[in-house]
């Protein structure tokens, strides 16, 4: 837990949004009468506070995962309702990104075998990650398809993407490849949560074009 690279990564996760909060607070103290500044400050401080909350949740979840304190109860979960619920919740809090959802078949009565708390948490992690890496409120797409007897829930971002070296370590606890760093604990957290539910987390990425991460879980017949 005291791995210096992990601590450095965590520090970055907390200090970057904190800088936005304190910086705007200072600017408002210095010249808060400017309406445009006040509006931008309110938006940015709100967004930074959400990021701080997400970072704290990631940290606590990772601590719990690393101490084997997260338990799962697998049960049939309505796929469509679960996905739409998570998308609606994230859309409400990170509204600057356009999030589209596409079901490639009806899945009207389809269920996946998953934990009712940890599946939404994992999918939420992918969405938060995608919104974060889709700059300027860029598009985020959620696609749900079937692969044999499994459901594939994919989240694609429109961000900078990763090269093969970065992608190879993206799901690790300290995701760095040589000198190139990718911050955030989301993908590590998601992988661990998905694996606890006997599922798979897959990733594909093209530098300059974005990334797609997919949760693969068994469908209940």
């Amino acid at each position, binding site marked *: 837990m005291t791995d*210096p690279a992990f*601590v*450095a990564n965590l*520090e*970055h996760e*907390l*200090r*970057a*949004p*904190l*800088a*936005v*909060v*304190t*910086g*705007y607070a*200072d*600017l408002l103290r*210095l010249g808060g009468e400017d309406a445009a*500044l006040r509006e*931008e*400050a309110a938006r*940015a401080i709100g*967004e*930074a506070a959400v990021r701080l909350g997400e970072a704290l949740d990631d940290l606590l979840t990772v601590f719990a995962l690393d101490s084997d304190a997260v338990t799962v109860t697998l049960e049939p979960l309505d796929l469509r309702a679960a996905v739409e619920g998570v998308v609606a919740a994230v859309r409400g809090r990170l509204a600057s990104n356009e999030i589209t959802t596409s079901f490639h078949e009806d899945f009207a009565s389809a269920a996946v075998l998953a934990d009712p708390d940890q599946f939404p948490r994992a999918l939420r992690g992918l969405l938060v990650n995608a919104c974060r*890496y889709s*700059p*300027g409120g860029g598009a985020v797409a959620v696609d749900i398809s079937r692969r044999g007897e499994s459901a594939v829930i994919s989240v694609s971002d429109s*961000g*900078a993407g*990763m*090269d093969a070296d*970065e992608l190879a370590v993206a799901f690790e606890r300290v995701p760095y490849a040589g*000198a*190139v*760093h*990718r*911050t955030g604990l989301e993908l590590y957290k998601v992988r661990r949560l998905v694996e606890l539910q006997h599922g798979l987390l897959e990733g594909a990425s093209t*530098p300059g074009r974005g990334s797609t991460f997919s949760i693969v879980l068994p469908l209940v017949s």
Partner: protein
Amino acid sequence: MRPQHRILVVDDDVSTRSLLRATLEGYDLAEAADAEEALAVIEEFVPDVVVLDWRLPGRWGGEIIAQLRRDSPARVLVLTAEEGAHTQLLAESLGADAFLRKPFSPIELVREIERLLA
């Protein structure tokens, strides 16, 4: 009114760029969200000072400083959320002219930039 010195802000975080834009109002400002964009903007914009985030997608700040030192007379202020002493030492050994850690005071940032421009 400040003279129109050119400042390039390089940070992948949209909110941080927005904060820097508000803080550095009055300067001639350009922005870049990653290393490739930064290096392209530097050629065209020819900044006096580059405010550089240490962690960028695909590259780290040290690579950009090294390239800047070869190709540009711009002064470099590293702005980072990283652990202080080690990163500062590394940044300065690569040629950074100033170093501020996040969270930072906007007044302190402007003061450091003015010092670099003096």
